[in-house]
């Protein structure tokens, strides 16, 4: 009997990495505390009360680069209404990000997650992945990848969330 118990325990431990703990739609957005490229710390809590588009991107990711100016345009359009775009770079080196932003400047907040732990917590299915978080800090929508066809959808969702109390 002990052998069976030991076997069950062993296999449970062995297969535990199969369980995913990613951020779910309708669930509270996992909190984070990351530095921006100027070294200032930004937390998700500090953005409470705003509709946040949390965009996980990287300088080596083609679609992310395509999405960037579009997100910037959305931010410029709805920023005054309480909409925030936060780009979390998963690049391993921060200097790459700074160099990239010199060439393609954006007006929204850029944070760096060189360790990739926040990306892991959110369980990205692909690059880029955008999470649209409501004013209450709950993840309302998730978009993996990027296509220009997504833009009207983004806008509709953002407008809808901005109207919510």
């Amino acid at each position: 009997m002990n052998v069976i118990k030991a076997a069950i325990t062993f296999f449970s431990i062995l297969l535990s990495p199969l369980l995913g703990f990613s951020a779910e739609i309708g669930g509270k957005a996992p909190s984070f505390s990351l530095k921006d490229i100027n070294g200032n710390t930004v937390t998700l809590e500090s953005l409470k009360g705003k509709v946040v588009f949390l965009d996980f991107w990287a300088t080596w990711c083609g679609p992310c680069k395509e999405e960037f100016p579009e997100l910037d345009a959305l931010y410029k359009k709805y920023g005054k209404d309480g909409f925030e775009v936060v780009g979390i770079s998963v690049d391993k080196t921060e200097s790459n990000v700074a160099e990239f932003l010199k060439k393609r400047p954006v007006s929204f907040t850029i944070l760096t997650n060189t360790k990739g732990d926040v990306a892991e917590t959110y369980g990205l299915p692909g690059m880029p992945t955008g999470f649209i978080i409501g004013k209450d800090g709950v993840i309302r929508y998730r978009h993996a990848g990027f296509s220009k066809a997504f833009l009207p959808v983004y806008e509709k969702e953002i407008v809808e969330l901005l109207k919510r109390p």
Partner: protein
Amino acid sequence: MKLWLLVLMLLSLFFTGCATLERVQPWEREVLADPIMQLEPDPQEAALDEHIFSTREGSAGGYGAAGGGCGCN
């Protein structure tokens, strides 16, 4: 019973392969995303090469019609 244990141990050893479920995650593909890591770094050039190859070899290629040999289509 000892045989059973031995089988279990061997199976466990066998399944440790499953423990390395370390799929490269999307945010870890920095090196893999480099164009130099692609089998065909330049798809346009690869298509051109393929076209020339299949035209010259006639029956070889296998990626489409070889054409008449002029390489013009």
